[in-house]
Structures are given as C-alpha cells and as structure tokens.
C-alpha cells in the first residue's frame, strides 16, 4: 500500500494567476527514493508542501483533490499533527532554525510531538551522530557554516524518525561530497524520501524514480538539458593582461582561526576561472579578497580596474522596488535595459524583486552585478535555485561576456563549472581539473 498519495491535486496560491499544481497524481511507496525535478516555479516546493499538509493549511489558496499520508487526509487536522510521520527540510536552513543551540534545536521537534522526556536527549544525539555532526552539540547555531546548519536541520528532521522525508533543494549549499553524504544518510534511514532539486546529477544517481514537473503538471521525463552534461568549451582563450594578482595572501576573521594561508592566484582578462573546494575551505574569503571587500592579513592583492562581486544567496540582498531599478541602481538605465534582455528578465522589469521566485531573484542579482560592466567579475555560487536550462543560459552569457574581463566563479556546481571554465582552481583537498 502506498505511503503517500496525491490524487488529482490542483492548487492555486491566494494571489496566483495560474495553478501552482495542476491535476497532479503521484503515489510514494514506503522506503522509496523519488527525485522531483523541474524548473524554477514548476511546483516542486508546492507539491512537497502539499505532502506536509502546509498546502493548503498554512498558505491558504484554492485546493482541489486529495493528499493522504499514512492513510491520513492532510486536509483533516493541522500540519503539526503530521509532524513525526512527515518531516521536511526546507530550502533555507537559516529560516527554519528556532533555537540558539544545536542540541536544543534538534530536540525542538521531539518535544513538540510529545516524545517522552528521557528519550529526547538520546534521540537528538543519535540523529546528530548518524549524520556525523555530534561534534556540533553545544555549539550556537549562529556560529555554524551553511553546510553545518543544513546538517543540523537534517538531523532535526531525522530525529523525528519520519516515514516520509521531504527535502527541498537540500544540496544547494553543499559541496558534492557533503550532498552525497546527505542523500546517503537520508536513504539509510529507511524512510521514503522525496527530494526536489535543480541540480539533478545526484538525485538522478540515488533515486528509484524521477518525476518531472512543468508548469505544475507531471510530464514524461526530464528534457535533455537536465540529464546531459554540457559540451566542454574547447576554444582556448587568449589571455589578456592581469586584472588581479593575489600574492601569498593569508586571512583570519577576528578571533577565529586562519581561513587562508599563503594562497596565490592571478586572473587575466578574457579568462573564466572556476574556484572549487569543499565547504569551509575559504573560497568565499578568497573571492572577497580578490574584489577588495576584505583586506588580507598578510600578503598582497594588486588589482587593475573595477571589480564587482555577487554574494551567496543574493536574492536576499535586493534593495529597490522594481527589477529594472535594481539593475539600474549601479549600472544606469542604458546598461540596465541591455542586461534585462540578455538575462531574459524583460517581462519581469516592473515586478517587485521580492515577488519573484528564488531562481528569478538569483538571475536578477546576477544581472545587477554584470550590468556594471566590471573588469573583474566575481560570482559566488551563482546557480543556487537555478534550473539547468537557465544555468546553460547563464553559462552562455558568462562566456559571451568574458571577453575583455576576468571572471571568477565560485561554485559547487559541476554542470556550470564544465560549461564556463577555462581553468579550474581547487582550494583544499578536492583537486578537480577540467
């Protein structure tokens, strides 16, 4: 008997113009690992929320059809009553942390579902140990890196011992090893797993079944862009003059251990360099040193020309009232118009940035940085929440605009790295060369 079933589900958000889910039929068997793929805004997160009962209870809107989990209709009772049977890991780990210390955070859900007090501590510690995060017990969540925080959130979900685990883009902040470990832990737990992802490589390797959503409907199989590796750019670039030179730089944040020790890097005009390495190895710090946002503790950074930097999770840092104004803020109106066309954002020009989907926000932030036409362009994880088709478009734009500037891309995304890199630089132990 199926563990979870969605029958002819059609759902429209309160302000939605079209259904986010449109006549969806899907059943999940116990212990099954299902990969839910689809472009940004295709309805993946909404379907996960329907299985968690959050749609329609939390979001409101118009809901037709039936979703049941473990034989319980999700429309009957609050989503909190499904907790324990269902556990969800949301996209943004920072937005789901309630308490200040790791052990209390993992125990929070166990307390809510009424686990006997004597069992709460051992279950919380066992969940942290299961994902190799027992060393985080007692730490403050504010001190953790994105990857560590994601593991704490996964431990919080696994501690509930759910029968259905819903993962919404869980690998967006993780390097490949950490993402693989996360999927292995989820799988080893024995519960059914539904994982919504825009980086399809890992889910495709782990999944028993792949479900592809387009415009809220389940369609047959993912398009080729989702499964095929992009062709390697074989045309060698003609290196121009130096744009930035980092000579034996070291850096430590105040009161912390050294993040970078004696690292060197030179970037030239016309080349795209991809910086890879495991979580916490100092990629972002190196990128900030290159652009001048940080000053090295030791060593020297020499820069020629204007630098621009796109931070991680840039969708959070949009400041104006319209998409057009956001791009024009630093670039001026003429360049802003051109950038809107190049990044396919023209139809969204008058929308408020916070009304966009996460993928659209990410593209907007990329556009706002590229439009300033810098000599050194640094992008830190630019493809979080961006689907493979848009990723290819971004790669094409980066390649097309690489002439005359140096581009540094920090990423865990192999698809993007393969598509854009003239050179790959590995920080830490992971040495990958294209």
């Amino acid at each position, binding site marked *: 008997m199926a563990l979870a079933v969605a029958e002819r589900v059609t759902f429209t958000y309160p302000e939605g113009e079209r259904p986010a889910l449109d006549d969806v039929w899907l059943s999940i068997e116990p212990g099954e690992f299902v990969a839910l793929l689809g472009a940004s805004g295709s309805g993946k997160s909404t379907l996960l929320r329907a299985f968690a009962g959050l749609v329609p209870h939390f979001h409101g809107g118009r809901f037709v059809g039936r979703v049941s989990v473990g034989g319980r209709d999700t429309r009957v009772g609050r989503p*909190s009553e499904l907790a324990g049977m269902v556990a969800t890991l949301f996209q943004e780990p920072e937005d789901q942390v*309630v308490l200040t210390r790791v052990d209390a955070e993992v125990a929070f859900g166990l307390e*809510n579902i009424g686990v006997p007090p004597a069992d709460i501590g051992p279950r919380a510690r066992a969940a942290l140990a299961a994902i190799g995060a027992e060393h985080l017990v007692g730490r403050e969540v504010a001190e953790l890196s994105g990857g560590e925080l994601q593991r704490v959130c996964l431990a919080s979900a696994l501690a509930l011992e759910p029968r259905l685990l819903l993962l919404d883009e869980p690998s967006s902040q993780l390097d490949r090893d950490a993402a693989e470990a996360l999927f292995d832990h989820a799988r080893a737990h024995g519960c059914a797993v539904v994982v919504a992802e825009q980086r399809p490589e890992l889910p495709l390797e782990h999944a028993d079944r792949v479900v592809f959503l387009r415009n809220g409907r389940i369609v047959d199989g993912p398009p080729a862009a989702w499964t095929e590796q992009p062709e390697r750019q074989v045309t060698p670039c003609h290196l121009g003059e130096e744009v930035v030179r980092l000579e034996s730089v070291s850096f430590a944040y105040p009161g912390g251990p050294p993040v970078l020790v004696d690292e060197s890097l030179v970037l030239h005009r016309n080349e795209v360099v991809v910086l890879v390495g495991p979580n916490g190895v100092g990629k972002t710090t190196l990128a900030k040193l290159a652009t001048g946002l940080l000053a090295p503790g030791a060593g020297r950074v020499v820069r020629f020309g204007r630098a621009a930097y796109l931070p991680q999770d840039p969708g959070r840092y949009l400041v104006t009232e319209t998409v057009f104004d956001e791009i024009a803020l*630093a670039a001026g109106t003429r360049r802003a118009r051109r950038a809107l066309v190049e990044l396919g954002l023209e139809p969204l020009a008058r929308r408020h940035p916070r009304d966009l989907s996460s993928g659209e926000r990410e593209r907007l932030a990329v556009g706002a940085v590229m439009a300033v036409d810098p000599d050194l362009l640094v992008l830190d994880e630019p493809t979080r929440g961006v689907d493979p088709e848009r990723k290819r478009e971004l790669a094409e734009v980066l390649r097309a605009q690489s002439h005359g500037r140096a581009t540094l891309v920090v990423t865990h995304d192999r698809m993007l790295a393969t598509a854009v890199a003239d050179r790959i630089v590995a920080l830490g132990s992971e040495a990958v060369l294209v």
Partner: protein
Amino acid sequence: MSAVPAAALLAALALAALIAHSVWAVAAVALALLVPCLRAPRRRLYLGGIAFSALALFVLTPWLEDDGAHPFWHGPIVPVIGELTVTREELSSAGLAALRLAAVGLAFAVYALRLDHDRLFGSAGWARRSSLAVALATRLVPTLERDAAGLVEALRGRGLAVEGVRARARLLSPLLAGSLERGLNLAEAMEARGYGRAGRTRVPPPPWSRVDKLALVAAPLIAIGALWL
C-alpha cells in the same frame, strides 16, 4: 553555571547597581559584570554602546543638574539658563549615574551574549509561547545585524558605497521586508515540526550544581544588601 541561576544573579546585580548609593559599590558591580562580558564573542557592539551611553550621561548630567555648594568650574552666563557651573556634588552624581547605567547595560550584555536562552526560556514551561517569542526576539538583533552587513556588502560588490544616514536609511525597507519573509518561513517550518500540537513534552533540565544553588541564594542577598551600600 545554569541559565536560571545565572539570570537571577544578573538581575540581582543590576538591581543592586540601581539601589546602591556608594560609587565604589556600583563600580565594583560594573567591574564584576565587565569580566564575563570581555570573554564573550561579538561583544564589541554592546561594549561600544554601553561606553558611549555612560560617557554621554556623565558629560551631560552636570549641565542639567543644579546642585552642590563646592564649585569645581565656573562657565559663561547663558541667557535663560544663567551661569554654567559644575560642582563636585554634580560630578559625583554624574559618575554614579553613569556607573549605574554601565552596570545595567553590562548585565544585559552578559545576558544576551553568555546565557543559554534555550535553557532559560525552556525552564518557563508554563509560558512556552511567550518565552519562545522572547527567545526569537532576542535572536532578531544579531540576525538583523547580519542581514544589514550582507546588504552593505552586496551593494559594495556592485561598486556602490553605503555611507551617511540617507544611504543607510535606504536599507531599512529591504531589512524589514527580509525580516517579514524570514518570519513567515520560520512560522511554516515550526508548524511542520509540530509546534502548537497538544501533548508537548520537555527535555529534562540538567540538575543544578552547588555553584548554581549558591548563586540562587546569593542573588536575593546581593539585592537586599545593596540597600545598605
């Protein structure tokens, strides 16, 4: 030290600083609170704020008070206000007020920076919702601080300098919007994790040590003892 005895001790020290009349006693309380504060991470903002406020109070108080018979300094005659003078009594009063403010500020800083809020508010099992709201509000300040730093960095990354009151005021709207978005996401995650469901249990608090018990006994004694200082 456990969270509840530590909170009781901090409250008692803050109260003692407000009650005591001896400058030396209040200075001793402030010093005692400064030590744990200096060992806390992210202390700069708190210490800077406290030092600025205490200094401002010390400088302003003599001009606003009209007290004492031992002039220390004679200033010009200002229309309406009269002659500006600073007396020894006014200086002493200003010093006491500044030290009191510093002591209370330091008690709050130690509370915010060093206490385990999860345990503290978890102890208030009878007021779970209110205590959770206070815990989340306490976390709001560092979160806003981090978001503001992220916004400034993102704008600097585009070559835009964020300087002056006007430029910083422009960040208020995105900061507020970001907080609202965060709040909604958090509420959704809490619901998905069973918050609000009947039959909630609680992690048993760890047993109190001798130091904890000593702190609980000492707290009221400090507050009462301050009446004679």
